[in-house]
């Protein structure tokens, strides 16, 4: 259920602009890896390269190699939709489909995979909603619009939608930045549970959050505006936050810059 991600010399562009350069890192299965760093350092770009969402933007492209269990996800024979099914993504702002009910939102991915049987869909929806700690709150109103939930519930709905298709890896792009502290806590708890089954990579601006939820932390930074983002340090979270080996990491986590 969970797979290893290996990035070597990953460089990503937006048109002529080089956003990240030569990123090398390995993410172990069933761990939570946090990507931290100042704004514009390319954490989100790197995250979006992992499930090939980066190339959705016009003019955007990725060089280098990214593999999932030694399979190159950028190989030209690889079906991009299969990559995205294997590597799910949760976005910064909760984005449930506004025209769909809670139930329809959760099973949207399964329907795309051609699952039509109602009993299977219902079972999968309940399982995903339970895994997302949302079932008890919504089980009586599955037919109501997903957009009618609170922000935190919407984000857990989006997590349920992502894990309903049973991906190997879940990418989270600042999943709590639009949420209040209580909803944030609920999602952090959820990440602890999810890492039993999935490999989780999370981009966050909140260093306490990175320290709380992750096993490994990658620190990205840029020299100055316009330069590509680079991976400065990648290590166990405990080490990064207690005894980082690079001066720049220490400056960032102690709040001296960024």
């Amino acid at each position, binding site marked *: 259920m969970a797979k290893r991600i290996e990035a070597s010399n990953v460089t990503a562009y937006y048109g002529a602009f080089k956003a990240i350069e030569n990123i090398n890192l390995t993410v172990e299965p069933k761990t939570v890896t946090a990507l931290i760093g100042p704004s514009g350092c390319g954490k989100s770009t790197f995250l979006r390269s992992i*499930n090939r*969402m980066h190339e*959705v933007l*016009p003019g955007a492209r990725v060089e280098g190699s990214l593999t999932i269990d030694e399979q190159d996800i950028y190989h030209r024979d690889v079906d991009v*939709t*299969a*990559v*995205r*099914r294997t590597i*799910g*993504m949760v*976005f910064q*702002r909760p*984005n*449930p*489909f*506004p*025209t*769909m*009910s809670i139930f329809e939102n959760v099973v*949207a*991915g399964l329907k*795309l*995979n051609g699952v039509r049987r109602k009993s299977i869909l219902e079972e999968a929806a309940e399982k995903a909603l339970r895994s997302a700690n949302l079932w008890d709150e919504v089980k009586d109103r599955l037919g*109501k*619009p997903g*957009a*009618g939930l609170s922000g935190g519930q919407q984000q857990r709905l*989006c997590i349920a*939608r*992502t894990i309903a*298709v049973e991906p190997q890896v879940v990418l989270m792009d600042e999943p709590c930045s639009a949420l209040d502290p209580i909803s944030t806590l609920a999602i952090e708890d959820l990440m602890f549970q999810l890492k039993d089954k999935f490999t989780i990579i999370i981009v966050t601006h909140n260093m306490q959050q990175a320290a709380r939820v992750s096993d490994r932390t990658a620190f990205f930074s840029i020299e100055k505006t316009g330069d590509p983002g680079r991976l400065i340090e990648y290590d166990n979270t405990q080490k990064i936050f207690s005894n980082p080996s690079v001066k720049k990491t220490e400056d960032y986590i102690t709040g001296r810059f960024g």
Partner: protein
Amino acid sequence: MGETPHRSADAGTGGTRVTESHEWPAGASARVAEAPVSTRTPGGTGLGGGGALPRSRKFGAERAFRGLTLAAGTAVLVIIAAIAVFLVAKATPALRANTENFWTFEGWFPNDAEPKFGIGALAFGTVLTAALALLVAVPIALGIALYLSHYAPRRLGTTLGFLIDLLAAVPSVVFGLWGREVFLKPVQDLSVWLNKYFSWIPLFGGDGPFGKSILLGSLVLAIMVLPIITSLSREVFLQTPTANEEAALALGATQWETIRTAVLPYGRPGIIAAVMLGLGRALGETIALAMTLGITFGISFNLIENGGNSIAANIANTFGEANETGRGALIASGLVLFAITLIVNITARVIIYRRREFTESAA
């Protein structure tokens, strides 16, 4: 202690303002009541002095603007009422003079000594041509709009979108002329072919002559409503939040699946509105139909034989030689057209309203 009288004076004025505003709608009065608080300036340069709240201005820009908007809003109601009164007043005498049933008689002789006219055939032709035009135009228009918004390279999309908008600017009389002089021939050939092989379907039956038929009128109408529907639905599709499309893509949807899960459902109310605007144009279209239809008075589903008529085309064709009763009869037909359009619009509203729980949260 010297401040106290000022304060009470101010409070007094505030009170009068509130009572005055009770004639306004509820929302407005609430805002008026708040106004004195929100317009205060620290230091109090108004009458109060010494820190008291200044008097609210009686004749400010705020008030003038509110008056203007109220006047504009009222004007719409007055104009609609005036039109309705005019139409009914002119139509009634003609309807009284009618010696045949207005709803069922198939013919239009309101200028005779014994006026005979019926709306049935005209209303039928109007609805049939408009419906056929939409049937042809909507799928094509949605296809073009999706191509322009989601498939075409950006520069090509912009250029083509501009061309489509140009098509919308072509006057309907030009479409009418083109339909009658150029488009007639291919439609005639098509009709003959349809008649030869499909005459067992009543739609394509008959013995001719073919050409200036419901089919020709509808196809010309379809071309005319195509740009409106295309450019509106293109705008709607472009407004789909990126977040929704990315959500679908991240679930492993292909481009078409993304359109199906995120773009089309989100754009549904907008598409309905676009189609209704197109239908409005098709129902009211006058000169192009007057030039391309065969102008007969009969209710028939035959699409390819010369014939067909519509309310608006009939008004354009017969207004010139109409007498008093004739004009009244035409105005009565106008009322019917108005009623048809109204029903169409209300239906569209109902469709949109039934899904409001979902569409409102979408905004």
